[in-house]
């Protein structure tokens, strides 16, 4: 009953994008800075506005920009699908792991003071934010992979793991 059409999203626009020299050069220049900025936001999150979520999104944005200009396969050479999936789990586990550790140390769940009397809050926040950052970046990347490399028999998007 379903009429099988061709690929839902074809490869045309990215192909044309690859011929845009200005964009390509600009993008190539910008990417490392975006990544760096992401790291800044990540680590500055302790003191000022910022944090893992924003950093993760920025990190993923750099990868997506690169992917748009040079093709999904090029990004996947750096961060393969499997790695992105593992990173999602690792990120979430890092967050939950801190909680479980505090729990096992006898304090409340996510009570960072249990980690160390002096720097507990710092370390706790740092680890948790790192977890969030990794998870968000990996998820966004994975989402981009899912939709960016769509062809009829692709894998389903792992959107439900974006938490």
């Amino acid at each position: 009953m379903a009429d099988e059409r061709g690929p839902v999203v074809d490869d045309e626009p990215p192909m044309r994008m690859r011929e845009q020299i200005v964009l390509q050069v600009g993008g190539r220049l910008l990417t490392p800075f975006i990544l760096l900025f992401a790291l800044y936001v990540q680590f500055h999150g302790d003191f000022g506005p910022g944090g893992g979520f924003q950093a993760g999104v920025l990190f993923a944005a750099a990868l997506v920009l690169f992917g748009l200009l040079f093709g999904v396969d090029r990004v996947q050479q750096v961060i393969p699908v499997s790695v992105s999936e593992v990173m999602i789990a690792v990120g979430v586990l890092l967050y939950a792991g801190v909680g479980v550790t505090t729990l096992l140390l006898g304090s409340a769940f996510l009570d960072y003071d249990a980690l160390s009397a002096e720097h507990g809050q710092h370390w706790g926040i740092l680890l948790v934010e790192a977890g969030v950052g990794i998870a968000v970046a990996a998820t966004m990347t994975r989402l981009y992979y899912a939709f960016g490399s769509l062809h009829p028999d692709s894998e389903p998007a792992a959107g439900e793991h974006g938490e």
Partner: protein
Amino acid sequence: MAAESVGQGLQQVALSTAFDVHFPALEVVLPLVAAPLCFLFRSRAFARILSAAVAWLTFGVALVLLQKVLAEGTVRYPLGGWAAPYGIEYRVTVAGAWVILVVSLVAALTLLFDSRGSASRLAPERRYLYYSAFLLCLAGLLGMAITGDLFNIFVFLEISSLSSYALIALGRDRRALMASYSYLIMGTIGGGFFMIGVGLLYQMTGTLNVEDMAQRLPAVLDTRTVLVGFAFLLVGLSIKLAVFPLHQWLPNAYTFAPPRVSAFLAGTATKVSYYVMAEVVFVLFGAHFVFTEIGLGAVLMPLSVAAMFVGSLAAIYQADLRRLLAYSSIGQLGYMTLGLSLANVEGLTSGLVHVFNHGVTKSGLFLVVACVGYRTGRTTVRSMAGLGTRMPATSLAFVIGGMSLIGVPGTAGFVSKWELIRGALAAERLWLAAVVLVSSLLAVVYVWRVVEMIYFGRPEGLESLGRDGEPVREAPFSMLLPTLILVAATVVFGLWSDPTLSVARSAAVELLGGAGG
């Protein structure tokens, strides 16, 4: 599997003396941590064992929590060590403990159910995703009942919803996709309404903690913002609860989801929303404001009655067993909201006891249908023809579950219906009692259709052969066991209703503020 769970169980016991203060957090954290682990290890077998073990662990923890709450009163757990109004507090009340007990029990049994055949559209090597989503859904549902923070409820609500959309979409039939899509749209709107409601209340009170807000609300109850906030909260929850005109996402979602997901969601998802609604209505705003000042009863009661009839009447006409059960769920939810709208101890008790009774019954019935589907390859009413002799245990399970849906004395369904009628009489609404009875007759009709098919239907032609042309036999033990446990529970707690009723009653009294209506 057994070794693993026993091992963890022992560890639990060893730790329990000092550790049980952490149980409220553990209840949520266990499935939440297990979910990425399933994802990480990419092994279906591992995921199966882990998820089942975790579900049984949460069930054990829920049991301990319930005992603790009954003995000591509300159990509080400050997350991250931050005290209540500032940090997020996990707060286990009797009603909450009751609901998580039901949720974890149903999860444990449905995960015990050995879903064979190609029930979901995932390739076998990616089946671990299913367990991952299942655990997330479980974590979300448990979290909603445990957390004492309104925004946190929203977050857990979305966790459970998102994972259930994904789970439903995994159904083999392509109609599952549309079912999941419309559930997604409805669920997101519901979640959005809930979030807006919380925001408006936060604006007026400056707090998100339920108890704290409940203390601050009376001062600003007459403002329009609070009224609007209340309306948003209620409608948002009504969508998740499938209250009458907002119920249409439910039938298809339950029909086309993979069998175990149907069984799990039918037994749990709406029940948790019911608890949240009861908390919002009775704890946050108070029965006086909701029912006396703005007269919510006049809206909720007719809608509940309508749901009872619409659900049951539609169920009569269904050809597919799962859809029949789903429509019957709408009717049964009508009984629950009716109990809530009575705003007295008996009514609320009936609703809360029905959380358990209906949860167990409906999950059991969905598992029965899963067994039938596995053996016959179809799930239409017609596919039950003559199963009375060929799948006797499964058939008997359906009959008993069906009787519980009708509310035949001696089954769990009767206990809640009886309590509901008592509630109606206590509220001096005789006609409601009559309406409940008449709507039970409709349940007789749709259950009878199936029973007639089981025992008097004659399979014709190819129908006498099951899936893959083999003769139909009794379902395998690994599928039958959890099914029969659930169905047996409806009988056990139908005859021995003291424990369920007394817990539900103390939960109702607690929700109503101990005033007794």
